[in-house]
């Protein structure tokens, strides 16, 4: 069980053993963020550059804090204030940052595959912080960590993922991760928000809420990505909320709920459930720090 990669680009290419070694390491880092002095000197002298070409609060802050808790220097770049807005290409930007001796590039982009491309072109460790509708590996890792913490075991756990699967990199990374660790995954979404042939990944698919949802131990509610909706996929938000919105009467009494944030309150999930005792949403956020610290630690110095 070990992790020897230079980059973290997606969950698809990881083995179950690699995922487990990241999750095991994260347990130790979680202890650090609960201390009074939340800092260890491990990455002293290392530089992490957060290159975020799409808006983000929690992922960016989470990477920033994870780096700072490990004593690295962290710099944030967004599309607006950088030469990206003058038309500099992503590769030029990355090469420039590499030349400034950045040890890590944490990349969030609207383009699927861009982190993979950069990883091949630069020596810095590249971490995919979300690329288009492709993958968001650290989100899946923090979700898997949260599930393992709550249920002890992921094998044979019944997980329902509900919402906009087509546009969701979170869904894709989580499906890979859950299946590799042996969970039973059911996707629930209107047909217009499901990619064609998604069953071939090894998941069950439902177009409506039915008994399958009641059987789930864990209900993972996706954010309806209003900014990525092209016209015509949904008749309207109110109808979506009525047909696919999750509230406590629609799920099993024992089920827990998760959501990657940010929430569209009252649309995909009702407030009482999202902030209630059966919600793991805040655990997800805390665990995100621990998992990202583990990722940064395990990628250090692999050139």
């Amino acid at each position, binding site marked *: 069980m*070990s992790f020897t990669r230079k980059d973290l680009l997606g969950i698809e290419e990881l083995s179950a053993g690699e995922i487990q070694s990241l999750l095991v*390491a994260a347990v*130790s880092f979680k*202890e650090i963020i609960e201390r*009074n002095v939340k800092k*260890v000197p*491990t990455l002293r002298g290392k530089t992490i550059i957060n290159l975020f070409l799409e808006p983000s609060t929690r992922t960016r802050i989470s990477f920033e804090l994870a780096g700072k808790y490990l004593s690295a220097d962290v710099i944030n770049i967004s599309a607006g204030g950088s030469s990206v807005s003058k038309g500099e290409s992503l590769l030029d930007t990355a090469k420039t940052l590499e030349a400034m001796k950045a040890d890590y590039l944490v990349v969030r982009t609207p383009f699927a595959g861009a982190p993979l491309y950069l990883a091949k072109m630069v020596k810095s460790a590249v971490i995919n912080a979300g690329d288009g509708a492709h993958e968001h590996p650290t989100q899946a890792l923090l979700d898997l960590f949260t599930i393992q913490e709550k249920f002890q075991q992921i094998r044979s756990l019944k997980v329902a993922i509900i919402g906009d699967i087509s546009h969701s990199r979170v869904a894709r990374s989580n499906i890979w991760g859950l299946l590799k660790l042996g969970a039973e995954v059911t996707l629930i979404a209107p047909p217009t928000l499901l990619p064609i042939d998604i069953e071939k990944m090894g998941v069950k698919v439902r177009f409506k809420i039915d008994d399958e949802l009641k059987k789930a131990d864990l209900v993972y509610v996706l954010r309806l990505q209003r900014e990525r909706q092209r016209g015509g996929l949904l008749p309207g938000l109110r109808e979506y909320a009525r047909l696919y919105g999750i509230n406590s009467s629609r799920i099993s009494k024992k089920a827990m709920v998760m959501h990657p944030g940010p929430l569209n309150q009252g649309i995909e999930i009702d407030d009482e459930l999202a902030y209630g005792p059966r919600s793991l949403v805040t655990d997800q956020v805390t665990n995100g720090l621990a998992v990202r610290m583990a990722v940064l630690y395990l990628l250090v*110095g692999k050139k």
Partner: protein
Amino acid sequence: MATKKMLAMDSSEIKRALRRIASEIIEKNNGTNELAIVGMVTKGVFLGNRLVKEINCLEDVAIPMGVLDTTLYRDDVNSKNFRPRVEQTEINFDINGKKIILVDDVIYTGRTVRAALDALMDFGRPQCIQLAVMIDRGHRELPISADYLGKLIETRKDEQVLVAVKEIEKEDMVYIVKDKKKSVKDGK
């Protein structure tokens, strides 16, 4: 792989050494007031637990025990292909004002103890820190020495010292291990 294993301490010697160290700790600190033991992952934890028991036998008090992993404070994190597993640190008491007895199995270069001192300081400001180890094998690279010592053993750098404990190796023994094929550069 041809290895040669020489016995350096047997289980009764280890037991006597622990008992002696326990009394030395009590004597040097004028009792057990404010004492706490912190065992260093992995073997130091087992030895630390035994010291807690020995002190309990002698003075009838239960002193607090913590576990310290120094991986994240090491000075060789940058070296290539070096990535030991991070274990968990568990110090469930306030170390401010405590007299901390840091426990490990072997002291060698002194770098692990250096890391442990830094790690402990992040938890607060202890009154003092003292070091107890079972084996001092020499070859120090830092100005650090043990306050309580089981046994001093002259070793060569290509030898290893293995402190075996019941909890892992099913026996309490100390061996000097010599690998005839490759010389071991680092490590206990």
